[in-house]
């Protein structure tokens, strides 16, 4: 493998993805959270706890923005190449499959992370909170971890199920990251969402402020452990994707 080739894929994909559709989609992702928060705040609401507002922003930026972006640009990673017939040109280059995977992964996570940073940066300008700057730093860090981990997850799904990657990614997200992560049992520790949520509450010092029975949904481990686990998940998923893409046959046409 060669880092220069991964960088070449990243640069080429970046240049190629500067299309009108991509920019509009990126703007929708980046502006979705600020507009929603602005609408919520413009209506007279009962005062809410700071952690409730923070959690809403967390859900909108770290979950909705990052996941939607990665579903759009990470999940169809292989299928897009197969459909556009460009796969075979890249696959016949030395380690071309791996370089393509890593370069496109980096490209997708960068687009998504930048959308998330833009979203929290605009939102933090007008949201009512005491520790706005702290929330900005935490959400940016969580967005980075979220982009990397979910990006790796979707890339693995894309490699294993290229034709139905989007469907499997949505199903996995809804079932595991949506439902299972909220199940008050050990199984929720296997989800990325559980770690991200725990980090939010620890880094914002909200852990002691929430009702005691809700703490079962959060990790008691120190934040560095959760970060370590998230990075471990990311590396493991990416490694699995790299191995899988090397050993999978991709049909680029009929059996001619």
């Amino acid at each position, binding site marked *: 493998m060669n880092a220069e080739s991964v960088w070449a894929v990243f640069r080429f994909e970046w240049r*190629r993805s500067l299309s009108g559709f991509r920019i509009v989609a990126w703007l929708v992702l980046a502006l979705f959270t600020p507009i929603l928060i602005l609408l919520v705040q413009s209506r007279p609401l009962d005062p809410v706890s700071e952690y409730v507002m923070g959690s809403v922003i967390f859900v909108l930026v770290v979950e909705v923005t990052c996941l939607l972006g990665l579903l759009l640009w990470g999940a169809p990673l292989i299928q897009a190449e197969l459909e*556009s017939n*460009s796969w075979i040109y890249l696959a016949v280059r*030395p380690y071309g499959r791996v370089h393509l995977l890593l370069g496109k992964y980096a490209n997708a996570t960068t687009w998504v992370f930048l959308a998330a940073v833009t979203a929290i940066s605009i939102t933090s300008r007008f949201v009512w909170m005491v520790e706005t700057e702290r929330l900005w730093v935490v959400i940016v860090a969580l967005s980075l971890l979220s982009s990397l981990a979910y990006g790796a997850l979707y890339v693995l799904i894309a490699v294993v199920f290229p034709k139905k990657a989007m469907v499997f990614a949505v199903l996995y997200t809804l079932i595991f990251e949506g439902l299972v992560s909220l199940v008050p049992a050990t199984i929720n520790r296997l989800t990325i969402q559980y770690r991200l949520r725990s980090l939010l509450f620890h880094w914002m010092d909200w852990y002691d402020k929430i009702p005691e029975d809700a703490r079962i949904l959060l990790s008691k481990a120190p934040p560095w452990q959760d970060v370590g686990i998230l990075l471990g998940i990311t590396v493991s998923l990416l490694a699995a994707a790299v191995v899988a893409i090397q050993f999978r046959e991709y049909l680029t046409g009929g059996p001619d």
Partner: protein
Amino acid sequence: MFELQHVTKLYKLVIGINDIHLSLPPGAYGLIGPNGSGKTTLINLLTGQLRPTLGRVRVFGENPWNHSGLLRRLGYCPAPDPAQWNVSALEWVTYLLQLTQIPRTESTARARQALERVGLGSSMHRPIQTYSLGMRQRIKLAQALAHDPDWLILDEPFNGLDPIGRREMTTILQEWVRDGKSLLLSSHVLHEVEEITPSYLLLCGGRLLASGTAEEIAADLGNVVGEVTLRGSGMAHVASQMVGDPDVLSLQFMPHRSGIKMLVRSSPAFRTHLQQVLAAPEVVLEELDTPSQSLDSLFSTLMKLHRGEVVSQESWEPLAPGEAS
């Protein structure tokens, strides 16, 4: 060097290629067959994109599956056009060279050279989506030969080319072969393959029907029956002379004895005998239709044989003299 040892590739229940056994030393070869004959499957096996279901594939003596080192020595021009072309030809070829692990500055220089070689020197900075189909074919060729591979594998490179483009593509490939480089050229445009290489692999239904030069294939087809049609006057004389030839398997007069049709085994002896008979003064020949030795004809005969439309000599007994109908 390419080697396939009894290779079969199945796509679930569909046969891609079926028990192909061949060895290709460095050289130029035309891979010929109709659509669905298994040409692309064979190429995908050689480029390590597919694993054989049965048998063994070797490229330069090594298994190409998952063998990145081998890919530097191959230049592949696939049949399909990439759909996303909002970059220039120079950018695209440079990008693919970088993926061949050639440093960026060198990649740009090599990309320029390759694009100039295929005649796109003046338009290499234009977005590819503004190119004609023929120009895109040339870009595809440029990306295949830019890293100076040992073997060039081309899948239907003549598709979409106008006559001038075909001539230019043929010239480039002839130069490639003249330079001593190896080439595997997949096509169903037989006469264009004939202009580039005299060696062929004929595929049909996933099977290798024949391989070698046209003469070698023709020799292999020596026991295949072909039809010779003659029209003119003096046909009774021709029939009486030819009916005893051991290579004539059947002979039939056309209405009013205006001509004859013979099922023959097309051997050199038969052809010499026929020439002598036709030289007789009472014979005036108006039409002669014989099985041709062209690649087109050989391929047609092989296809008929494959489908059971033509029988081999073993199925026939030569006629005894005087048995003409």
